[in-house]
């Protein structure tokens, strides 16, 4: 297309001019081909990953207990006996992260969209987005070097005063427990949740807000009446997107958690839980044979879980889009 522009000025023969006048046909076809191809590649890659996981995981999924007995790190558990605690740990860490991150994100998003002066809002928006650019291994290092010693006195106090609640029983230093992992994850998923919620809040119809204010509502009442109901499904889908990231997070969990394979809610004790992704990273280097298959099978389960969570988030977003479109 770009090359077509100078051709007329060279006053060349007719065929050149004709080609210059109808670049659309070829260009359209090429571009349509490229973009279709790109779309197909995504599907093929996704299918290839799914097929690879299924193919490599199959031996472990159908393996007998005797086959699995030779895998050292499973310590005699059955496939589901091994996966269940990992699945539980993965979901538990993500849920802790969400419980902390979602209210915080709503607050930050509201501040940026409705409270802060415009210039401050912009700077703050950038800063939150910047958090997303920090590699997870840095969060892991930060978790070990700074967060763990910082949380230590707080956790001591928690277990001393609220230790009768099983959730907070028997803290042991250093703070390498599910609570710490969940907090690190919370900070890691904060940017994506905040960014999504902020966009949704900014889309609140101006008329709704002004109508609310006109009826004599304060700013907080306006937010409660107009912004939050409008953004509810957006908040849910943002949380799901964040959860999708938290579920698959590897390095940070690997570095800040003393892992274990139990199903319980002792958030302050070490060696109780482990997430699937961190477990794969920890065990794969020394795994061989059936052990690799087992780890890939856990990867398949994580794939299905994140896929489901993301699908659900998309579905909620799509529903909201229709709703606002009808408005």
């Amino acid at each position, binding site marked *: 297309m770009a090359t077509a522009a100078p051709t007329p000025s060279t006053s060349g023969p007719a065929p050149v001019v004709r080609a210059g006048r109808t670049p659309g046909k070829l260009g359209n076809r090429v571009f349509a081909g490229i973009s279709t191809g790109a779309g197909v590649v995504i599907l093929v890659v996704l299918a290839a990953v799914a097929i690879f996981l299924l193919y490599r995981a199959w031996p472990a999924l159908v393996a007998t207990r005797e086959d699995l007995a030779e895998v*050292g*790190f499973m*310590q005699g558990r059955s496939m589901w006996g091994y996966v269940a605690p990992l699945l539980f740990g993965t979901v538990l860490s993500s849920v802790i992260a969400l419980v902390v991150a979602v209210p915080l994100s709503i607050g930050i998003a509201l501040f940026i969209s409705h409270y802060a002066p415009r210039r401050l809002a912009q700077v703050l928006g950038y800063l939150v987005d910047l958090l997303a650019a920090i590699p997870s291994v840095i969060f892991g290092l930060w978790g*070990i070097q700074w967060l*763990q*010693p910082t949380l*230590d006195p707080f956790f001591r106090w928690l277990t001393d005063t609220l230790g009768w609640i099983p959730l907070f029983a028997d803290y*042991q*230093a*250093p703070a*390498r427990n599910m609570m710490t992992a969940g907090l690190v994850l919370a900070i890691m998923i904060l940017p994506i949740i905040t960014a999504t919620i902020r966009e949704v809040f900014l889309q609140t119809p101006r008329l709704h807000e002004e109508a609310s204010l006109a009826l004599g509502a304060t700013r907080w009442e306006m937010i409660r009446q107009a912004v939050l109901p409008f953004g509810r499904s957006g908040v849910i889908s943002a949380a799901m997107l964040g959860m999708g990231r938290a579920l698959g997070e590897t390095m940070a969990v*690997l*570095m800040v958690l*003393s*892992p*274990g*394979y*139990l199903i319980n809610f002792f958030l302050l*004790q*070490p*060696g*109780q839980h482990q997430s699937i992704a961190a477990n794969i*990273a*920890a*065990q*794969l*280097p*020394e*795994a*061989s044979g059936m*052990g690799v298959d087992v780890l890939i099978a856990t990867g398949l389960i994580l794939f299905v879980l994140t896929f489901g969570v993301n699908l659900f988030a998309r579905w909620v977003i799509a529903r909201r889009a229709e709703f606002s479109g009808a408005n």
Partner: protein
Amino acid sequence: MSALALTLAACGNGDASEDDASTGTGTGTTADTASNAGGSGELSGSIAGSGASSQEAAMQGWIAGFMDQNPDVDVTYDPTGSGTGREQFLNGTVLFAGTDSTLDEEELAAGVDRCFGGEVIELPLYISPIAVIYNLPDVDAEHINMDAETIAGVFMGEITSWDDPAIAEANPDVELPDLPIIPVNRSDDSGTTENFTAYLSEAAGDVWTHGEVETWPISGTQSGAQTSGMIDVVSGAEGTIGYADASRAGDLGTIAVGVGDDYVPFSPEAAAAVVDASPAAEDATDLRLTVDLARDTTEAGTYPIVLISYSVACSQYDNEADAANVKGLFEYIASPEGQDRAAQPDVAGSAPISDDLRGRVQAALDRITVAG
């Protein structure tokens, strides 16, 4: 033995032509070229290895030293872990491997195919003491003494306080704090864990009932991934105790281990001594110099918690360059120069192998040839 030592010395000078015959192991011209090449700077090409991360630091030192002498050879070592290293070696991805545990029967059978009809060579070229490390900043004793039963009790969770009588009795001169003991283990499958539990199970089997395992058998414990994770956790709280490659102990305190009537802190000499005091493994051959570590030894001056990481290669390769390069590299690793280099505290802090072992290693290396 003297002939072998001579061969080695000659190889170091890059002039081994007349000694090959005297070893009686040379198998024709290919062997001669291969052995001539060791350290002479005539080698070229590239060889890749992978495996145990325990040897990584030492291997980096060896590769640097070897490539100083042979600038045309490009050597890489990928610390993928022992399991992956063995797998990649057997499927032909890499030419040599490092592994903390010896090859099992199945792997040895697969090794015949991989080695073009030859055999797998396993050499104990990396001997590293495992230190039992603790974090008690307020105790200024150089070492805390513990015998095997006490260490086992601590890691079993039976001895839970630093001023427990079992520890106090062995340390009459040390003022021990009233602090809970926090045992720390490796969270990943690890050769260090395997060697440490092997020691506990052999030297204190009555107390340590979990046997020799790669995966820590007790749940609900503090743990860290890889050696650096272990060090981080032990450093992260007061009263912790763990185990790690001795070269990584840094400022942390180390336990002097009870052997016989003495308490022996780790040292390269004491670690090498226990390997020499150990018998060969049952399935060891002239090519596979695997040893059955005498971890329950009572011989004075030996430090029994040792990790041996084997260097694995083939007795036959399908081309001359590979055979000569691998042989040259392993000869450098086994040489006094190579072993001393790895023993530097800033390289790996390993224990140099004895001259006796070096002789047998050289005999095995002399049998590396080209297939066919």
